[in-house]
């Protein structure tokens, strides 16, 4: 595994919606490369006919009845933590010109 380039780190930061400083990009490029090199050892393990294990419960697709119930959490309480909450809506900067 070759070292992650600064461009690659900048791309991952963009995917992660994190605006990083040049100093952070440089530091993360070293640190993430170390971790990737470490986890690369999994390549030694033979896994050709092995199924992936997403979780240990054996559960999949838990269905619940499609019944609408009033929430115990009030909209006003939820809105209290938002930078701006108006008439039951979160206010955000416009996304269209």
């Amino acid at each position, binding site marked *: 595994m070759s070292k992650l380039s600064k461009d690659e780190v900048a791309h991952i930061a963009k995917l*992660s919606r994190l605006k990083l400083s040049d100093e952070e990009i440089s530091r993360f490029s070293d640190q993430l490369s170390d971790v990737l090199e470490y986890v690369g050892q999994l390549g030694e393990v033979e896994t050709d006919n092995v199924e992936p294990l997403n*979780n240990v419960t054996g559960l999949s697709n838990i269905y619940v009845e499609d019944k609408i119930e009033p929430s115990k959490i009030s909209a006003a309480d939820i809105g209290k933590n938002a*930078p701006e909450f108006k008439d039951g809506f979160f206010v*955000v900067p416009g996304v269209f010109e």
Partner: protein
Amino acid sequence: MLYELTIKSASEKLASGEISSVELTESILERIKAVDSKVGAYITVCEKEALGMARASDERRKSGKILSEIDGIPIAVKDLYLTKGIRTTAASKILDDFIPPYESTVTAHLWAAGAVLIGKTNLDQFAMGSSTETSAYNTATEYDSTTRNPWDLERIPGGSSGGSAAAVAADLCIAAVGTDTGGSIRQPASLCSITGLKPTYGRVSRYGIMAMASSLDQAGPMTKTVEDAAILLKYMSGHDKHDSTSSKREVPEYSSGLGTRDLQLKVGVPKEFFGAGLDPEVDKIIREAIDKYREMGAEIVDVSLPLIKYALAVYYILMPVEVSSNLARYDGIRYGYSVLKHQTPRNNNQTLDEVYSISRAEGFGAEAKRRIMLGSYVSSAGYADAYYKKALKVRTLIKNEFDRIFEKVDLLIAPVAPSPAFKFGEKTADPLSMYLSDVLTVPINPAGLPAMSLPAGFTKENLPVGLQLIGPMWGEQTILNTGHAFQQVTNHHLQKPKIK
């Protein structure tokens, strides 16, 4: 002193009328005032709420309407559990002023049983770390640092549930609750000489606990004795319709299942947990504990789990992928730190995308950013098969290996951490070295197994060393029985730190 009591002993004194919940709660609040500026276990001490809940408990007791054996018992809660109306930070600046509009299921269960919320404890930011050093809060005000180990204030308490472990060890609560994704209950329990149990995945509801890695996270008790862990686990456990991975299995009366009879069981000693890198003093203390179990009648057998050496690599792929997904919700729009609210002067020309990426960059600490980035990378197009899917397959093999071992033995016994508590700053510059300190606790979580840390002894420098008991799925009762038996014949768990 009252603050030294366990759940069991406090509950008996409350029942006999010897003490009231208010007296017990006040004793702990005074203890917090006396030593928490040095230990720094708490982000928030809930003095007003605690006294109100204690008074209500005393009223119930007077009118003979006691709710449970934990009615009136002060409990500390890791600041990762949502507590309605009480600031909950995950030890991150991004949630510095977050007031949850609802209560986590586990804490709701505790309050419904009459327990008293004493405060919210410090942790590694979003439970990411092994030393509580990634917390954004310098709770030990006398040192202007994060939580310190009550056994040696120059050392870290472990993490991520470091505040809960330090609070129990320093008698700043009667018991605490933590969470464990890769060792976050067991490792600090070991380093602070308390008992900490990570239950089977699905035993305890995750609803209302901030998610780190949803397929690995599990909440559990952190207590002064195994007996207390058994009591507290019962109230924490059970199915919750808000968490579909919580199990519908019946919750046993764990504490009534405890006994001191001879241990008629087969205990495996996995050689991979005793490999290079294990501190010689830790090795010696764990071997002595194994001898103790042999004396008590347990059959001790050497076993091998050859794939265990890959567990940490599996973990450092799966966990960051789940982190990067779970932490996407912190977007500066609905709650938490936001440039829309906190930036001065406010730049009105920022696009929505910039609001996301600047709020997140300013709000998250370095470790959270590292794990989000790592997770984004190993699950991104072109790398997901090589890393993420590969790790999920190796997870299957590790799980199968544990299943096969538990056909032969009832429990596994191992160290919890490769070394005793290390000093502040020792591992912060090199994240990989910090990750490696979890090598003996991490393998349990991808397999979903229950495991407990309990005090096993002290090094020459008087630093605590914990013993890890690992069970098969739903093996909590066996773990608790076996741990309790150890505490009947040893007194490590009764030792108290002298906080200077």
